[in-house]
């Protein structure tokens, strides 16, 4: 699996995590190239379906990144997101994809270093888990 480079989709909220990712860039930090960010107004907008669709389209992992707990710009969107992530994790375990491929993380706007660190760690973890199992199935079916 050493040559496996996981693709991780990050749903990042506009107010904190997306900004933190920008800050990481400005600080010239780095994280794996497989980390691809989609911007949402608030993690409270991240639907379980979005996470499922990302995995269905081949992502190896999905990270939902919101503001620090207690600091959501829209009061509690990040808490809702965390609860939804749990639900999706259960479903992924049930269908054999693995709930651990999805994670909820919290960073503040200024925490560029933390963002880079989390993105790297998560990517590494997914790397150890191996590719999204649907890829194997898709090959077999084809």
């Amino acid at each position: 699996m050493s040559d496996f480079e996981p693709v991780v989709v990050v749903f990042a909220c506009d107010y904190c995590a997306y900004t933190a990712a920008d800050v990481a860039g400005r600080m010239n930090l780095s994280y794996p190239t497989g980390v691809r960010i989609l911007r949402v107004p608030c993690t409270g907008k991240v639907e379980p379906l979005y996470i499922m669709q990302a995995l269905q389209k081949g992502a190896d992992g999905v990270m939902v990144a919101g503001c620090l707990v207690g600091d959501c710009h829209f009061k509690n969107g990040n808490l809702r997101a965390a609860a939804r992530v749990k639900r999706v994790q259960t479903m992924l375990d049930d269908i054999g994809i693995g709930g651990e491929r999805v994670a909820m993380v919290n960073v503040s706007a200024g925490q560029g270093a933390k963002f880079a660190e989390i993105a790297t760690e998560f990517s590494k973890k997914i790397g150890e888990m191996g590719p999204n199992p649907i890829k194997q199935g898709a090959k077999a079916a084809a």
Partner: protein
Amino acid sequence: MNQENSQRTSNSVLVLGGGIAGIKASYDLAEAGRQVYLLEKKPALGGFLPLLDRQFPTNDCNICYLSPDADKAGGARTVQAMPLTKLVSLEGQAGDFNAKVLTSPRFINVDRCNACGACLAACPQGAISFTPGLDTNSPTCLRYPQATPQAFAIDMSKCDRCGECIKVCAPEAIDLDQKEVEQSLEVGSVVLASGGELWDPAPMEEWYGHGRFPDVLTSLEFEQLMSAAGPTGGKFQRPSDGRHPKRIGWIQCAGSRTTKEGGNSYCSSICCMISMKEAIWAMEHFEKDLEATVFFMDMRPMGKDYELYYQRAKNELGVNFVRCRPHTVDYKEETGDLRMSYVDDHGSLGEVDLDLVVLGVGFCAASDAQEQAAVLGIELGSHHFVKADELAPVSTTRPGVYACGMALGPQDIPGSLTQASAAGCMASADLAAPRALRREDDLPKEKDFSGQDPRIGVFFVDWGRVVQEVVDSKTVEEATAKLDGVVHVERLELSYGQDGLAALEKAIGEHKINRVVVAGYSPRTHGRIFAEAIRKAGLNRAYLEMANIREQDALVHHDDPKAATDKAVTLVRTAVAGVRQAKPTPSLTLPFNPDAVVVGGGVAGMSAALGLAGQGGKVYLVERSRELGGLANQLARTLDGRPVAPELAELVEKVKANPNIEILTDTLVVDHKGQVGSFITGVQTGPGMFYRQINHGVTILATGARRYEPTEYLYGQDPKVMTQLEMEKLLASGEGGDALDTVVMIQCVGSRNDDNPTCGRICCRSAVKNALWIKEQKPDAQVFVLYRDMRMPFTSEDAYRQAREEGVLFVRYSPDAPPRVSKDGDTMEVIFKDHILDRELSVEPSALVLSVPQIAADEDTEELCEIFRLQQGPGGFLLEDHPKVKPVDTPAPGVFAAGSVLAPASLAEARTQGLAAAGRALTMVSQMSLVLDTPVAKVNGDRCAACLICVRTCPYGIPYINADGYSEIDPAQCLGCGVCAAECPAQAIQLPGYEDDRMLSRTEALLEGVL
């Protein structure tokens, strides 16, 4: 409005100082249609706030509340932010000033700098490091991650012109030969918001050890130590040896309330709260078992509901509070501990060993305050702060020049913001009548593309060296050109300067482009700029999508150009897929009625009415009683001894004489409906309670409070017992006579107890005021003030000191052993314990004066809340929108509040809040129509199952089920977070820009080729 000025032709204001007060004033003024020049001496806007990690009472990180404001202030068309700039001279008069300003060179071209930080890394001095916080003055410095403008600056005094930075700067932004520039600005008024400075503990190094011992920090240094963005990266370590501190002591009044050399005699007002916040935050996030001890003389949590925060810190969270006079801090070599010694409440010496000492240092006037005052031609008051007074709290001695924030004295954030809005309101009154602000007017009509296939233009902005070195532009551009719907690919060479934008607009027209992707910068920083640019070219702002190939690709993947290039292709493809499905967001235009209703005719209400009159429409001032003036009618003089009545009468006269104000006395508000811009308020007026409806656009609530009627201490049973107000009346009559022989005052009667846990805030000042007045009338009078904490903010501390010097005896009592009063025939006796003598004393008073608080006019406020659909907070006072950043706004758009309906307020506070509420309201009434074009959630009624889930999950309670039986979301109120859309089980709600199909398209494009 301070002077009759016929020359009200200017539409511009000069704001000095880019801290929160300056930003707030600028932003309010800009929103009200004014042109603002915002001067800041430092390289970036922000002031103190960005250096604070957390703000009480919510202990939130509020930087995201500030940064959009700073961003807007920096980016708004009518605010010109001028960093590194100072005022050189101010000629002329209110309404017609000529200001000369001098801009120092930044040595970095702001239009080019992309804040990549390469120069910072390359500067060979070694002293250059970007550590936000403790080290704020490194030669090239971005003061905080979200700084505005987003550009570095070079401090020439530390630069040896080696040129290393020039070599690494990809956008070629560095220009070491920049010269200073002088400009002349025509403005109608000036707002001084140049802030203050943290007191430097160096003169008291002998006692506090700051500078000698690395583990003695100022509160701001400690704040940075805790910050995730600070020098330790959020690790909780003390500076000397990295030890994890378990015992921290906060020393209050460091350099404040002292007559010692190098200190300040006044109270800095806000340090108590800062220390408590730091203690709580440290305990909650770093060390559960932290021994946090605050060493204090009086705890002064003075703001609204701060007392509750104090009680929580003390009783629930286990912060130790030790009442004492701190003495010295020493270092013990053998253990590495700091030893602090102090004199406690009983006069005995105490010692304690600590790992870390935090100095609750105060604030003082800016070091260049005198210089600036001279330039502005204004007088300074005591301690070099700007001179202002009780009934003109944001005015300076020069008409047309106003002040706010720490320039006036130490302020907390809500205080600064309130003054800023008030100063903005005053400054606006010196200008020409605001011209209607209709931002869409000067723009071409939006083109209608319905039914047309997408014609997407992709613009690569600034393939600067930083990006180009990593990403192969040719590959990306070629791949982009092949994407479905892309008709045009162009490189905009010139950053986002005006030329680049013009080229963009031109290309849109030439190639009949109906959708735009801009690849380069982050949408966070540049989205607004490009949205405006395509709007100028006739496209709806929603037809834009950005591909962040700078911050989120090239800059983070600089070590892997191949992958970074692939990723750039992916990000552009994703943006194209998203924009392909973009639908226009119609801007919603609502007519706006510029008239206002102000409820309550006290000082706050009158101030608000005057602030608005003549700047918008008509003001209806509704007062339930027969007279204007409210609680202030009962006041005889101010703390500094000036009579209140003449100034109050002048204020009332001004209101009565103003042709734009209609006064409705004997009038009650009975109903209220509609929304901002088109409210209808029903009132019953006059002796006959005639019902009438008022149409108006904004509302200001200033209904005041009432005085607590004491049941304690024989009040009402003995004529010797009276309230401070009654004593004031007696003093004003000059007929106090024998009653003034021996006066005992008891503080905190009816406050800070179980029934009313809040602090009365202003009763201490009333007591000192009356005590001084008694001494004035009868110098040999014996006056005792029995208190729990004397809360004398800022220079009122000087009055407190004066009272002590004049022989007024202040004796502290603890709430578990309050003074006792007994009566035997005509003889009354007050018994209380003296802590220093440690024995009970007995006094036979000739007058017993009770300091009672203003309390919420419970039923009235409750009714008010019901009518205006607002909430009451602790103690029954009206709840503001945000205690920190929106202190005079309410959660209902278009409804503002001021004065003691919010919390017990002094005259100056009531006046300031009234003006501030008017200032906030002006941001709305100056607009002929309300234009809303931010994406807001939309409901498809056919799909809606009326399940109520959106109603229940909206953080702001905006959706409701309408008469047709489906959910409706008021676009004027929705903030666009998308929670309802995410929760809607019928997929009936969509958030423009993030529709389900659009998110799916983006996901597919982002993952194309993966499977």
